């Protein structure tokens, strides 16, 4: 049986007022994302990809179009189904963000509590859901730290003492404890050393596979798209100029801008 659409963007758009004029940061974006699928959103800075991500994660409201998500409900009597995020209350959205969604920030310090230990960071979502056994919280934290290849001896250390790559791994663990079905990632490997990037990408690929995660990954790096995503959108000046299967778009780009991007990738 065909699985239900998990996330659906329908002509989504966001505008800002800049020097008195409305400017569309992104406009007319449409796609359907299924469970276990990874979608890369690729573009250079100013393309609108980060704004799009925030729209999809309901951190911004659409000025045009809509974003829909397959909301799970607690009881079977109330079927879920695709719901317009604009119609969900703030309480519901924040609950979604803490449970069924993950959001990996580009800078780990934006996605972690820097003043509490690694273990506390991983355990927070579980405590918010009512987990009250310290020992169990701790062993969950240990288990997740192992899964993201973090030294569990650092569980009581503050994230500020972790390296950049380790902070990203911690952020990932923190988001995955509640087994979300959808994870948003904003340039998850940008800013890290190249070798660290590579290992992190491998980890992400494994986790996505193992946990059947759906993900929307914003990146300016085509290699990240190639490695992680089955499908991709190419954005320029707020619009989607090309979209499709990753391999097809990268091997046979149709739009001149995509061709430019692909040809610009430095090859040894």
């Amino acid at each position: 049986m065909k699985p239900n659409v998990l996330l659906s963007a329908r002509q989504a758009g966001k505008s800002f007022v800049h020097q008195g004029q409305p400017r569309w940061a992104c406009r007319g974006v449409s796609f359907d994302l299924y469970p276990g699928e990874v979608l890369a959103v690729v573009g250079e800075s100013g393309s609108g990809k980060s704004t799009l991500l925030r729209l999809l994660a309901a951190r911004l409201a659409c000025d045009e179009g809509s974003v829909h998500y397959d909301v799970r409900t607690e009881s079977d009597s109330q079927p879920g189904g695709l719901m317009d995020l604009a119609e969900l209350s703030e309480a519901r959205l924040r609950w979604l963000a803490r449970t069924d969604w993950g959001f990996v920030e580009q800078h780990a310090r934006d996605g972690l509590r820097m003043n509490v230990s690694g273990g506390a960071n991983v355990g927070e979502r579980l405590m918010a859901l009512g987990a009250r056994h310290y020992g169990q919280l701790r062993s969950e934290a240990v288990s997740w730290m192992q899964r993201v290849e973090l030294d569990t001896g650092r569980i009581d250390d503050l994230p500020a003492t972790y390296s950049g790559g380790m902070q990203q791994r911690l952020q990932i663990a923190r988001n995955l404890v509640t087994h979300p079905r959808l994870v948003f990632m904003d340039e998850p490997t940008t800013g890290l050393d190249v070798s660290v990037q590579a290992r992190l990408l491998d980890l992400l690929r494994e986790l996505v596979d193992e946990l059947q995660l759906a993900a929307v990954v914003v990146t300016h790096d085509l290699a990240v798209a190639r490695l992680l995503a089955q499908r991709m959108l190419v954005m320029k000046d707020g619009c989607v100029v090309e979209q499709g299967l990753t391999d097809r778009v990268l091997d046979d780009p149709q739009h001149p801008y995509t061709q430019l991007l692909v040809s610009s990738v430095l090859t040894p």
Partner: protein
Amino acid sequence: MMDQHYNFAFLDERTKKRIRRALLKAVAVPGYQVPFGSREMPFAYGWGTGGVQITASIIGLSDVLKVIDQGADDTTNAVNIRRFFARTTGVATTGKTRDATLIQTRHRIPEVALTEAQILVYQVPMPEPMSRLEPSRRETIKMHALSEYGLMHVRLYEDIAQLGAISRAYDYPVMVNERYLMSPSPIPKFDNPKMHMNPALQLFGAGREKRLYAIPPYTAVRSLDFEDHPFEVQRWDHACALCGASESYLDEMIVDDAGSRLFVCSDSDYCEERRDAGHVGTQQAVTLHDALAVPADAITPAEQEAA
């Protein structure tokens, strides 16, 4: 004799009405901080104006008022507040918990169990339980509205991870009616269990921060903890030197240059009542061992009572 220059209990009737309306809201939503138009009182902010405004709004001629600070009736601030009400209402005052209908308190809950006929008014300096973690009221209002108490949870986890125990000894956060996180005011955690299912109405006033809240009678109040690190109250290795009580909160007083300590009930009325009933303590100061020594050497309260 009531001072005729001021309205009964100092505040004008309209103000009292507004405060009572806010109190009704508070009682309807246990543990929720209700903003109210706090007035300047003849006491400095931070010295009990919230509690005084609540008491002033509900006190009536037939009430019997008790005011305590640190558990005692004769501490200077309690004396000051009691005089204020005596002067502005002419209402009877008492030091006996059992005889009081209205008790205003700072930092303690009386040892004697309260009844349905009594109201306990707490003086609260900082009503927001998460204020040390998040000073912005705008942010904490949202957290309460959305039941997002992650900030507090991680702090408790962190205490255990770093210190081995939760590091709050007073003003220990509680969940009221399993919905709102609440500050019980700076009472020692020893007193927290008394709030749970108490037959009396408990009202909390923060004058400077301009908020009040309430715990209606027989409401569930749970001190935050972990299943494997359960909440526990303070215990002493000594009993009260005056009355021998081993179940009450004790004040520790340094009585000589050698550092000898005397432990005495914090609740002066409770201690006096026990003494009147014939209970006697050791009447002696204690030389405290080095704090690192294992306390097994100390006399247990049971042995002390038997002695």
